[in-house]
């Protein structure tokens, strides 16, 4: 009896509240719903806080900002010289990727349903990519993954509305080992250190398998798996030095990588062993003279100091450096190649649509199997039934140039896309284990 009384008191209050929330929210999305015409809304999701902000998120967003500004002013070189996307002004909305996959799924739905964005470009975290891809598919909305590494997305799943405009992570370690082979680096034994989460575990496997193929006699030694964000590597470094090996491999990135280099440099690890780092370019500008010479590094593509010479690249490099006083590294490059591809796809779809703003289906049709030139070379949506890009990559050796007061990269070798990426009909794991069948390295 007393209880029903209590409920009687509760529910009105609750209903009112719920109603208010609903109304408020409804209004919010109306307001945003109105001026969708003649502008093209792009939701851009990357790490604005947390451990991946400094190395990936914020540089990428910075890249997006300068590029979109240039697009809207129509300042980009041909064929990207139309203002905005085919005349439509680009309206970016930025969202923080920090906070876990479930939050990302929610934010993605909000971007599409509430903020009414036409396309979402984003996601560095592989977990986030895996989580959001099916959602975009279910909502029949256009999604461009610009950075995340895991091959699982298009190798385990099939999508109509989801595209990834950068090679997946397989390329990074395959190229690394190919480079070692090409410069006949001695590797009778090798140690590995990778973070104990999906990125590290996958990179470790790719490297290990590639070594088995190209250096069949090489003996794996230490196989360290520090936790993500450990920050303290004294113990690992001792372990690596205690078991001397010709080569020391690591896929560390960002703060962890910087900490590792700062702590291992003075202890002479780089002198005792040939250190190979699969994704280290982004720490070079900041580290400067603290970066030991002679490390073999990759950039997850032909990015930054290893980017190919081209008018487009010079232009891009210039506008980025002008705004941020530092040259662009992998993250902004990946964002750029993604937005450039998107621009072409939108304009292609518009042409097919009689100059009208295309819908998700038309966009998908236009993007599928697309090819375009990016500052990092030609991008081709060749895998995952035309949804997964492949691109060339490059590996080089670090050297601190006291005159230029910056780390430069020597002995750069470029690898064509088909040389380091699996063919369309094959999963990367099987491809490596089978000894890279069909690889074209000319």
């Amino acid at each position, binding site marked *: 009896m007393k209880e029903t009384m209590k409920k009687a008191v509760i529910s009105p209050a609750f209903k009112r509240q719920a109603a208010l929330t609903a109304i408020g929210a409804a209004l919010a999305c109306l307001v945003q719903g109105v001026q969708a015409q003649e502008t093209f809304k792009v939701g851009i999701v990357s790490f604005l*806080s*947390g*451990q*991946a*902000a*400094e190395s990936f*998120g*914020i540089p990428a967003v910075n890249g997006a900002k300068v590029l979109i500004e240039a697009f809207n002013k129509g300042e980009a070189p041909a064929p990207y010289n139309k203002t905005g996307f085919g005349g439509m002004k680009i309206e970016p909305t930025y969202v923080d990727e920090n906070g876990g996959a479930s939050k990302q799924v929610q934010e993605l739905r909000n971007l599409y349903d509430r903020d009414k964005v036409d396309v979402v470009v984003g996601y560095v975290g592989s977990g986030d990519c895996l989580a959001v891809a099916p959602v975009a598919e279910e909502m029949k909305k256009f999604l461009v993954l610009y950075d995340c590494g895991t091959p699982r997305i298009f190798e385990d799943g099939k999508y109509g509305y989801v595209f990834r405009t950068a090679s997946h992570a397989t390329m990074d370690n395959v190229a690394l080992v190919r480079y070692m082979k090409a410069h006949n680096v001695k590797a009778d034994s090798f140690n590995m250190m990778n973070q*104990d989460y999906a990125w590290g575990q996958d990179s470790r496997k790719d490297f290990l398998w590639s070594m088995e193929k190209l250096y069949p006699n090489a003996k794996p030694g*230490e*196989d*360290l*798996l*520090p*936790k993500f*964000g*450990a*920050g*303290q590597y*004294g*113990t*690992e470094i*001792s*372990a690596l*030095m*205690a078991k*001397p090996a010709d080569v020391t491999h690591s896929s560390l990135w*960002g*703060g962890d990588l*910087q*900490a590792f280099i*700062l*702590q291992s440099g*003075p*202890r*002479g690890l780089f002198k005792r062993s040939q250190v190979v780092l699969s994704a280290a370019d982004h*720490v070079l500008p*900041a*580290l400067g003279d*603290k970066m030991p010479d002679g490390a073999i590094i990759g950039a997850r593509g032909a990015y930054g100091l290893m980017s190919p010479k081209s008018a487009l690249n010079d232009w891009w490099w210039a506008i980025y450096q002008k705004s941020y006083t530092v040259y662009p590294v992998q993250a902004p490059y990946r964002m750029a190649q993604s937005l450039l591809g998107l621009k072409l796809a939108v304009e292609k779809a518009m042409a097919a649509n009689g100059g009208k703003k295309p819908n998700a289906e038309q966009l998908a049709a236009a993007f599928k199997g697309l090819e375009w030139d990016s500052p990092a070379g030609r991008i081709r949506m060749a895998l995952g039934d035309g949804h997964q890009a492949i691109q060339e990559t490059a590996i080089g050796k670090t050297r601190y140039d006291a005159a230029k007061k910056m780390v430069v990269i020597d002995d750069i070798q470029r690898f064509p896309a088909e040389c380091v990426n699996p063919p369309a009909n094959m999963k990367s794991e099987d491809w490596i284990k089978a000894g890279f069948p069909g690889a074209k390295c000319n």
Partner: protein
Amino acid sequence: MQTLFTILIDGLSYAAWLFIVALGLTLVFGVLKILNMAHGSFYALGAYAAASFVSWGASMKMAPAFSIVAMLLAAVAVAAILAPLTERGLMRFFYGRDEVLLVLVTYALFLILEDVTKLIWGANPYYVSEPYSLFGNIDIGSQTYVGYDFALVALAVIVGLAVWWGLNRTRHGKIVLAVIHSAEVAASMGINVSRVYMLAFTVGIFLAGIGGAFTAPMISVQPGVSVGVIIISFAVVIIGGLGSIEGAAIGALIVGLARSLAVHMAPVAELFSIYIVMALVLMFRPEGLFQRIQARKI
């Protein structure tokens, strides 16, 4: 033999770092009964402040040795500025509320400081490399160690002894101990508990700051450094027993050795080593190695 030795050294230097980081946490809990989730943020702020101070010192053309002083000053500054703000301006309003509620308050504080730090220092990485080379290198067997690592061990010992001495040998310390034992009794004895809280909180932040400041030279100071240390220092403190100084020391040693053992012997287990130790301790002595639970009197 060589490996065993290496394991010990590595374990010790890691333990030293852990101890410095966890000490403030356990002290604050002991006195205020607050499990401070924002501890990591104070650590991060210490690191950032150190970065700013040291680079300022460098720009002033001061001797490299000054950088050590600069790092200390950084910790002092962090404590001096944040203690009043957070303790007087925030925590004070929540005293007497449920312990768990206080954890939430500090969690909110952690969220806030995350962004505040970013607003002040931006997202770019900072380096404090000067001090790291200050103590040169030391060769032991096949290993080359950075003198700085051993300096940290010394620092840990000094800080530990200082806190112990401060608590057990000074008048203020005795008062603090009284409050640790029972705030009510202390208050009834005419002790100004709220001042003791202020003191303890300040020292707690200072210790976090020291931890951050002296770690800064080994890492790249950037967003996210705070998160890394929270759980790990929790683990140490839980293993040692919440609010126990000696517990924090033992906890740090156990975790440090366990980790270095794992890295050298079974790398696969590293991520897990700390949790395993924590789980084991919790199974057999959930109140922590140095916690005694008092029975209720009727």
